[in-house]
């Protein structure tokens, strides 16, 4: 697709795909209609010849199958470039038939709706009031970064596990619940209150980010939409080391969430440190921070006679005591074990601390929030193991 041939662009939330195809159809246009959505990992393409769709692409999908899925892209942006096309003619149906059939499939639920509209799905995942879940609140909200406010009614799903999306929110009022969908059912992880963030540090760094949990409104919730572009700009300009520290923290949080979800389903991760040796303990290397360059590291916690695995780190991850991001892991509440292949470079944390102190409130709050959630979830995992050991 040649950028310079773009003759028409806009938002499908204003003119939907059905109408767009009718306009291009009535005009007898030839070219490529490109759709981009924040909720899809890659763009979608529709190839038109004299106004008729002749092929489409959505990731692995092609032809009409791909075209049908694109009707579900409600919030997408479109760009039409007028140019000769050499695409295969995989679609031979009449334009109007394609449009009506595509919309029919959206209405029938046979095609998934992508976009903020889809988020307004009522969740039946939360049925009882489980107020014994830990509640994490955030620090004071920096309103400069809030670009919009959204309200969600009780039970609405704000983000959905395994759906793509980079939106970041901060909870302004009310409570949301973070849950993991497991093959056996639902694992309820944590509740988030005012000042807490929905959306992770990793989602800033990675385009086409896949959500790793579902977040549901508990009661009426008011969320502030964060200025993603601003946060993104700040993030990409950080030093490599700080970026790695933040991403590694996020990875740790995700792993402990997975272990927590597993533990709730009675899948216990007993740590196996056979052949590994302690590297960071409360007596050894306790002031140091390393970036792993090779080998494996396991963060384990002793609970009675058991060793509970908290996370499993490898190349590119950070291990050690970061005084400004307390996760209640090593060196005081857990130990780091390394295998024979382990190599690492030490990081001068004092330099990083200086950079960290100059972060914007919002990014710093997000980092703190991730550390707090890691610590809260770790405590929860440990509690579950304790209970399990007692039984």
């Amino acid at each position: 697709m040649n950028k310079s041939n773009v003759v028409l662009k806009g938002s499908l939330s204003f003119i939907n795909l059905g109408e767009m195809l009718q306009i291009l159809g009535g005009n007898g246009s030839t070219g490529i209609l490109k759709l981009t959505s924040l909720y899809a990992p890659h763009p979608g393409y529709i190839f038109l010849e004299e106004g008729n769709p002749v092929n489409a692409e959505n990731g692995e999908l092609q032809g009409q199958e791909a075209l049908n899925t694109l009707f579900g892209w409600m919030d997408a942006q479109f760009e039409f470039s007028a140019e000769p096309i050499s695409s295969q003619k995989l679609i031979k149906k009449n334009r109007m038939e394609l449009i009506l059939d595509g919309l029919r499939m959206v209405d029938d639920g046979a095609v998934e709706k992508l976009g903020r509209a889809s988020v307004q799905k009522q969740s039946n995942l939360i049925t009882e009031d489980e107020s014994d879940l830990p509640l994490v609140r955030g620090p004071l909200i920096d309103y400069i970064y809030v670009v919009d406010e959204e309200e969600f009614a009780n039970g609405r799903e704000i983000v959905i596990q395994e759906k793509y999306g980079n939106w970041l929110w901060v909870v302004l009022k009310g409570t949301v619940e973070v849950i993991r969908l497991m093959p056996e059912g639902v694992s309820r992880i944590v509740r988030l209150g005012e000042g807490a963030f929905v959306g992770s540090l990793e989602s800033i760094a990675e385009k086409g980010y896949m959500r790793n949990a579902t977040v549901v409104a508990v009661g009426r919730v008011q969320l502030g939409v964060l200025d993603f572009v601003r946060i993104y700009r700040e993030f990409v300009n950080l030093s490599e080391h700080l970026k790695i520290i933040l991403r590694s923290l996020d990875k740790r949080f995700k792993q402990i969430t997975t272990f927590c979800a597993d533990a709730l389903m009675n899948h216990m991760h007993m740590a196996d440190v056979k052949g590994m040796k302690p590297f960071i303990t409360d007596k050894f290397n306790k002031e140091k921070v390393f970036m792993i360059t090779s080998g494996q590291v396991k963060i384990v916690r002793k609970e009675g006679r058991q060793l509970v695995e908290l996370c499993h780190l490898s190349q590119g991850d950070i291990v050690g005591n970061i005084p400004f991001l307390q996760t209640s892991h090593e060196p005081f509440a857990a130990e780091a074990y390394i295998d024979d292949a382990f190599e690492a470079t030490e990081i001068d944390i004092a330099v990083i601390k200086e950079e960290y102190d100059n972060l914007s409130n919002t990014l710093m709050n997000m980092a703190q929030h991730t550390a707090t959630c890691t610590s809260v979830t770790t405590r929860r995992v440990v509690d579950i193991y304790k209970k399990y050991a007692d039984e």
Partner: protein
Amino acid sequence: MAVINLKNRQIECKLVYYGPGRSGKTANLEYINKNFSKQVAGKMISIDTEGDRTLFFDFLPIGLGKIRGCDVRVQLYTVPGQVKYRATRELVLRGADGIIFVADSLAVRREKNMMSLKDLHENLKKMGLDIRRIPLSLQYNKRDLENTGLPIMSIEKMEKELNRQLKVQSFPTSALTGEGVGKTLTHTIKLILAHLQKEFKWADGS
């Protein structure tokens, strides 16, 4: 909102058959497609929507005149009755130039007719259209059932219940036998053309 296609000097407009499920919208279009085949452009498209099929084809009204030298092409649609077909219904109704409301004469469908008409009113309103201004005709369909002993409503009763405020032209029809189908269509297309003439004149001030 008719579209003027400058490439082939054609005015495209949209006529939508609206009404409760199984009232005979599809039968209307099937009859037209079969019996006015010379005026049908392209094949009829049929989408299987729950309860009712959604049909679409292009119709070229012959002998009803041109507008400013342009030929007229009418897109005929049925709208899926079920509530869940929102996206489909919106696409079909958006920019409609005229409506034929197909009411069911069966006594048991009395309420369904009224609800559907109310629905039409609301759906048009959402698209900035006014049911009292858009070219509209009513059809009291399934009159052929009169002879079968099934309880059907009298024309007077239907007029009173559906057309008292609208006061538009209504037709007793039987979409199965085709009685009244052509008449309703011709009348409504004429209404649309007159409406467009008026709009275009008003637009250029002549």
